[in-house]
């Protein structure tokens, strides 16, 4: 069973003499096309075996380390030279300004001798702040934003959250005093003494 028979030797011998098909160029063209896709010429082919460390490699590693260290020092130096973030805050404050008097709608007089302070319509880039000391005057005080510069961590903290109708309602200023009582009610009118 494990020995080759005479006819098998004959077959093996005959199969070595098979005529070769004339496909040498056609097959090479296919191989070349595939190689151009998989292994572009000059990229070192499949020689992905790690090379032993040489003097040149050591020099490259040393140079790379030096460049990395230099860049790190340079970055740190630049960071310390950067101006304080308040510069940016000032720019942002300018951008967030109160609306001009023309933009403020006229006050509305309501029955009951009470006044309401109309609030400017919410728009992008404007901030409404609960202002102290709102009196019964008909004009709303100009809204200005004067953040304490020292306490602000960065300029980005000044970016206001988007305003909604709910937030406007919540920030409606309180009226001072008792409602439905005007200044006229407190006026002291001297009574005339009877001449008699």
């Amino acid at each position: 069973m494990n020995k080759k028979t005479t006819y098998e030797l004959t077959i093996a011998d005959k199969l070595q003499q098979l005529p070769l098909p004339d496909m040498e160029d056609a097959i090479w063209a296919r191989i070349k096309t595939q190689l151009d896709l998989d292994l572009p010429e000059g990229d070192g082919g499949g020689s992905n075996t790690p090379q032993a460390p040489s003097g040149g490699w050591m020099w490259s590693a040393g140079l790379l380390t030096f460049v990395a260290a230099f860049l790190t020092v340079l970055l740190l130096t630049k960071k310390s030279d950067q101006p304080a973030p308040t510069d940016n805050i000032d720019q942002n404050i300018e951008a967030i300004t109160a609306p001009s008097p023309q933009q403020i709608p006229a006050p509305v007089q309501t029955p009951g001798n009470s006044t309401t302070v109309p609030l400017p319509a919410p728009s992008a880039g404007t901030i409404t702040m609960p202002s102290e000391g709102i009196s019964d005057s008909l004009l709303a005080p100009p809204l200005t934003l004067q953040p304490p510069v020292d306490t602000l961590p960065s300029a980005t903290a000044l970016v206001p959250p988007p305003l909604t109708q709910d937030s406007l309602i919540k920030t409606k200023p309180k009226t001072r005093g008792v409602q439905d009582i005007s200044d006229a009610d407190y006026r002291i009118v001297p009574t005339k003494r009877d001449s008699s």
Partner: protein
Amino acid sequence: MQAVERETETMLEGCLANNRKAQEALYRQFYGFAMTIALRYSRDEHDAADIMNNAFIKIFKSIHSYDASKGSLHAWIKRIVVNEGLDHIKSRSRFSKDLELETVPEPPVNNAVLQEMGAEEIMNLVKRLPPATHAVFVLYAVEGYNHREIAEKLQISEGTSKWHLSEARKTLQKQIQVQTSG
């Protein structure tokens, strides 16, 4: 002889550097050798061309793994082409692992008839074998592998390899008888 070795060495260095001219030179030098092997595992020339194409792509991609101290370049290329041929046969046939045979009667084959036959006629007889039987017969009778090696290559048992060889011999005997009587 030394000049040929030096030329082969230069060619290999070029292939390692992915030099297209060196790769073409290697391909053309081994075309006949590799194509003869590929034809044994194929049904026609187109099959052989596929085997050649895939085998040489593998050769160029793994040329760095060739170690001259472990064997000749011919042996290394032959192993790759044979494996590619077997993969080709496997792709069109399932190799049954349930067939076992330990002892087999030797069927008589008229060698004189075979001697008169041409290489292509004999190859046509071999091609008519079922794919798995074809692979085992070529590996055993032509390439010179033993049953243990064939079993490893095809991931079958040695008994299955023996069964396929027995089947190949029986079928070839019948076909040769038909040729003789015809």
